[in-house]
């Protein structure tokens, strides 16, 4: 066997990181925002079957960008981890911190193992607490590090630009409709600065709602409920399809609370 060329460890790692980052940057972004009653996940995703946002456990949800088969595997692994832990101990003993650690170990090992190609994924693990100060949001980049986030966070293709847009405008105690509007506005930012149109059909929205009476706080916001929420705020910039919606009770300023969610 011939002697392989020498590649410095720095160079090898940089190459792998660039490979992963490029893969992630190809996909559309996902944003996660805290609002008064919980955490909202908004993804640009035209597919109704392949989800980017999913439930992991009672108070924990998962959002991902990058390669579908890779993050789907991690999602299933997370559900199995959470269910096994809850079965072995108690439902209260399943935490986002524990899950984020396991994901970080998994991603980190794969990233630094020479035999495997690095995963082209970036994950968010979030847990809704009893109050907004107990909410936890963790961002897990492809290399296995963990970033503890607060307020609002974006992952995916255009995440730097979207992230700074969100950071400037996000504030504590937003209603669901306000948070959703901000999320959609941020997703409209394109790399070249121009705005795109995003309709309700292109969005995947889910919430971890701490006010939900059920033990499982995760809920997808679909169809008419999503359109209603998007129409709640008067669309001031570049009016989307929502402008034609009847403005019967939504015109009198921002609603004090989010419209009640219909629990199925």
């Amino acid at each position, binding site marked *: 066997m011939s002697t392989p060329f020498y590649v410095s460890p720095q160079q090898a790692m940089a190459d792998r990181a660039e490979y992963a980052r490029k893969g992630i940057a190809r996909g559309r972004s996902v944003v996660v925002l805290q609002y008064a009653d919980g955490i909202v996940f908004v993804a640009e995703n035209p597919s109704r079957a392949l989800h980017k946002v999913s439930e992991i456990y009672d108070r924990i949800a998962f959002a991902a960008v990058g390669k579908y088969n890779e993050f789907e595997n991690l999602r*299933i692994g997370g559900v*199995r*981890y959470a*269910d096994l832990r809850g*079965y072995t101990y108690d439902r209260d003993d399943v935490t986002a911190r524990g899950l984020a650690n*396991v994901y970080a*170990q998994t991603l980190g*090992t794969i990233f630094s193992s020479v035999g495997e190609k690095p995963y082209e994924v970036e994950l968010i693990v979030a847990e809704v607490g009893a109050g907004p100060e107990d909410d936890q949001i963790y961002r897990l980049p492809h290399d296995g590090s963990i970033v503890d986030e607060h307020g609002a966070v974006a992952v995916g293709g255009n995440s730097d630009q979207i992230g700074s847009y969100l950071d400037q405008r996000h504030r504590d105690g937003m209603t669901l409709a306000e948070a959703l509007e901000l999320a959609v506005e941020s997703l409209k930012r394109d790399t070249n600065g121009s705005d795109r149109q995003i309709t309700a059909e292109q969005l995947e929205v889910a919430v971890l709602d701490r006010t939900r009476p059920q033990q499982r706080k995760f809920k997808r916001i679909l169809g008419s409920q999503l359109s209603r929420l998007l129409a709640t705020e008067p669309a001031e910039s570049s009016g989307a399809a929502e402008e034609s919606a009847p403005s019967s009770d939504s015109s009198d300023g921002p609603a004090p609370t989010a419209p009640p969610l219909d629990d199925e």
Partner: protein
Amino acid sequence: METNSRSTGRLPAAFLTPGSSSFWDFLGEHAPEQLPGNRTLPPLKGAVELPHGTTIVSAVFDGGVILAGDRRATMGNVIAQRDMEKVFPADEYSAVGIAGTAGLAVEMVKLFQLELEHYEKIEGATLSLEGKANRLSTMIRGNLGMALQGLAVVPIFAGYDTDRGRGRIFSYDVTGGRSEEKGFAATGSGSVYARSTLKKLYRSDLTERQMVTAVVQAIYDAAEEDSATGGPDLIRQVFPIVTVMTDEGFRLLPDSEVGPIAREVVDARRERPDGPQAPVL
């Protein structure tokens, strides 16, 4: 820690293998010692006295199904618990009630609930009612070894079938044999008496409240004839657990609803101790 089976701390391969949506199957592969059926039992000499749960009654009415159970657990002659809960929600549209060895039964319900939730999370869709009933069948069959040593678990599974728009009941035997019941079903040591009562009282056109009353009558009769079944306890305010599944989902009736019905039943028995009478012909 279960995830650290390899020293790297990453999720073991079993977690990331696609394929099965069943938590039961996953447990069997990754941690078989945690499956209730995989435990080996030392040979038993004579009868072991363990807490047993007793009477579970279920009845279909127009628009849904009721699953109810008494509250007593017995250990031989001793009343082990007066306020045991034997009826549990399985998911949003179904419930499971258990008779038999209490410890094993509660564990089986926990695993069954998790099995349904796990499938739902992984697949993004719920199992059909038949699928759920079949899963429970497999789980009971897994317990056959212990059942033959006297540690049997015999549940009733009832749920609202959203596809067909009606309530359905499935009863089981210890081997996992499953049969769908028309109208009503009962299991446990007091089930013989409860079933006789329902036979006389059951009509498919009864309303939800009337059917709850009929079910409480059945539990009352079972408690009268079977020492291991507990009737409504007006002194301690312990009433049968009654759950209702309709197209709006699972609902556990609070004591404020079951209490008045139980009191009515007991009051009527003061006049007529044997309960309501059916015509001879």
